[in-house]
């Protein structure tokens, strides 16, 4: 039997919920909603942010911060299980791009230069995306969760 935790029980997400204020949460949720709606300016921003994803991933992997390390693992898991996966739908890919592009933006809801909380909002954005993926396709969600754990090791 699988010992996978549901999305809202993953430790890193529990951690994040404790440190984010209700205002932060509302802002991140509003940003997620806005990014989901296809608008040309947000598409362009997503595209621009995704240009630097390779460098961003290298930066995160070299970090000692647990949030940044978790984000590197999440990015890899999304890339492997959705973006590179042949059977992923366009919508699933777009959701993944939203989370990864948000991660690449240093001037998001909590700017990344905040040493303690700078990446907490990025994790919450992944949480929102994962929650939506779980609703759409439990099997993909499971694959991401497994891949995430492997990438963390």
């Amino acid at each position, binding site marked *: 039997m699988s010992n996978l935790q549901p999305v809202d029980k993953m430790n890193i997400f529990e951690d994040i919920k404790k440190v984010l204020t209700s205002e932060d949460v509302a802002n991140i949720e509003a940003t997620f909603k806005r990014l989901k709606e296809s608008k040309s300016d947000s598409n362009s*921003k997503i595209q*621009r942010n*995704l*240009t630097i994803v390779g460098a961003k991933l290298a*930066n995160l992997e070299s970090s000692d911060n647990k949030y940044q390390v978790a984000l590197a693992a999440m990015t890899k898991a999304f890339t492997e299980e959705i973006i590179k996966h042949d059977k992923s739908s366009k919508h699933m890919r777009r959701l993944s791009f939203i989370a990864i592009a948000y991660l*690449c933006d240093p001037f998001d809801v909590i700017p990344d*230069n905040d040493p303690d909380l700078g990446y907490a909002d990025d994790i919450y954005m992944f949480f929102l995306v994962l929650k939506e993926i779980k609703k759409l396709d439990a099997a993909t969600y499971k694959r991401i969760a497994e891949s995430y754990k492997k990438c963390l090791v």
Partner: protein
Amino acid sequence: MNILSTLSQRFKVYTYPDRHEIPASSGTYAWFFPLYAFDDFNEAQELADLYRNVFALDSTFSGEYQLTEKEYTEGRHTRSWQTVSLKADVTVSPTSTLPSDCQKIWEQVQALPETKKVFDQSLMAASLFTPPLYIGKTNDLATRYHQHLSDSGFKKRFENFCRKNKLPLSISDLIFCSLSLDVDSEKLMSDRIVDDSEGKDMNYLLEQILMKSARPPFSRQ
């Protein structure tokens, strides 16, 4: 010794993941802007304009700025914040438009993953041939790197610029280059040679000369 012939061994390039390899020794350093071929541009001109904006900043001026090019008028060419009076027989190219054949090449480059990858890498490598954003001289390169990363006027100025221009870059995305002489020479550079100079050394002198002559866009003059 011809110092120029030994530069290739003395010149080091670091990015954020290699930051732990920056030595805690004396040296000259410069920050360079990484030339990403951002994927949201359909036209090569847009990318060229974006980079023109980065390097057009003039650190000797403060306050708000906007890069606009005005029409050439006789004897006078105005570029937003800089006004230069000229008395010369010159031809001024009023715009920074790329040659018309560039767009076709750009489209071909974008069309194929292999050409795009090679072009992106060449552009990124060429970052070191752009004017540095900031130049300095320090007794401890590693410490200075981390100072700039955590809290510095340079960081604030650069990140404000990126925010304003919607660039997804922060100071940790920049390229840090260092250049050191041999240990003894670097030691001499950081020795106090003037009694009443408040601890200022030859490093300070060199840094000031570099800043005033090269006018790196994000150094405070």
